[in-house]
């Protein structure tokens, strides 16, 4: 019941915000908010349209929603920190965009992070063996660390460059070559395990105790 009320409250708040944004002619953010609502509540909307009632919010669904929402929140927090950093040091390819446009993309991407997280916990993870789950998280960590170190390297390179001490090659190489390469490895690796889990129809055989042992 709490979950239903929380969902209803979230949808009402999103609709009010969208109306407010449209009235102030911030169409970008309004559309982004609409897309995020569709991404987050696609299951409820589809169920309402097809069966004229909300789907059951069982404990497994609630656990997966909590995990996916936590991932999305962490992503949004980290992205806001890095974007603030980028604006603070005037990184050209970020500052070229209006902050509201950037906010729109942030909303859509956090909705995608939520959706992918939910699908992973709900559909892919139960079909992967424990070592495969471990490898998936390792690749995801590589992706996160590479992204963070890439942005930090660009920041440090710009700061050192502005101080006019000397040409700075180390952070430049990390930011332009190493970090993107590591990001590619992390992205491809995690995607492989994600798709592997989704596409596996049968669950892998797990070690089952034999019947004699249970009876004993």
């Amino acid at each position, binding site marked *: 019941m709490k979950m239903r009320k929380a969902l209803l409250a979230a949808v009402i708040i999103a609709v009010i915000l969208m109306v407010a944004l449209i009235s102030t002619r911030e169409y970008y953010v309004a559309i982004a908010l609409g897309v995020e609502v569709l991404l987050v509540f696609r299951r409820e909307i589809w169920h309402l349209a097809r069966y004229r009632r909300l*789907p*059951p919010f*069982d*404990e*497994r*669904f609630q656990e997966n929603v909590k995990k996916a929402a936590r991932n999305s929140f962490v992503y949004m927090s980290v992205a806001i920190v890095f974007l603030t950093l980028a604006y603070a040091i005037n990184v050209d390819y970020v500052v070229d965009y209006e902050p509201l446009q950037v906010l729109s993309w942030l909303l859509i991407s956090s909705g995608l992070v939520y959706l992918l997280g939910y699908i992973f916990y*709900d559909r892919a993870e*139960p079909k992967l063996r424990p070592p495969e789950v471990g490898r998936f998280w390792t690749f995801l960590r590589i992706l996160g660390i590479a992204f963070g170190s890439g942005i930090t390297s660009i920041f440090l390179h710009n700061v050192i460059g502005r101080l006019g001490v000397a040409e700075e090659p180390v952070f430049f190489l990390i930011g332009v070559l190493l970090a993107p390469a590591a990001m590619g490895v992390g992205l491809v690796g995690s995607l492989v395990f994600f798709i592997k889990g989704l596409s596996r129809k049968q*669950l892998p055989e*797990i070690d*089952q*105790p034999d019947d004699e*042992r*249970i009876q004993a």
Partner: protein
Amino acid sequence: MKTRIREYRAKYNLTQEKLAELVGVRRETILFLEQGKYNPSLRLAHNVAKALHAAIDELFIFDD
């Protein structure tokens, strides 16, 4: 964890969908419960056991 939900479900001629409806969960939850890939709460285990007229320890078998 091994479960005998499928066996009991067959005994009472219940589909996964029907059992899910009786217990108030999604069909996927019943699927993963049957395959031992989800540890249910005590409440859910109790509800499933009640729907299948069985005791919890008859349905859920843990290997130590």
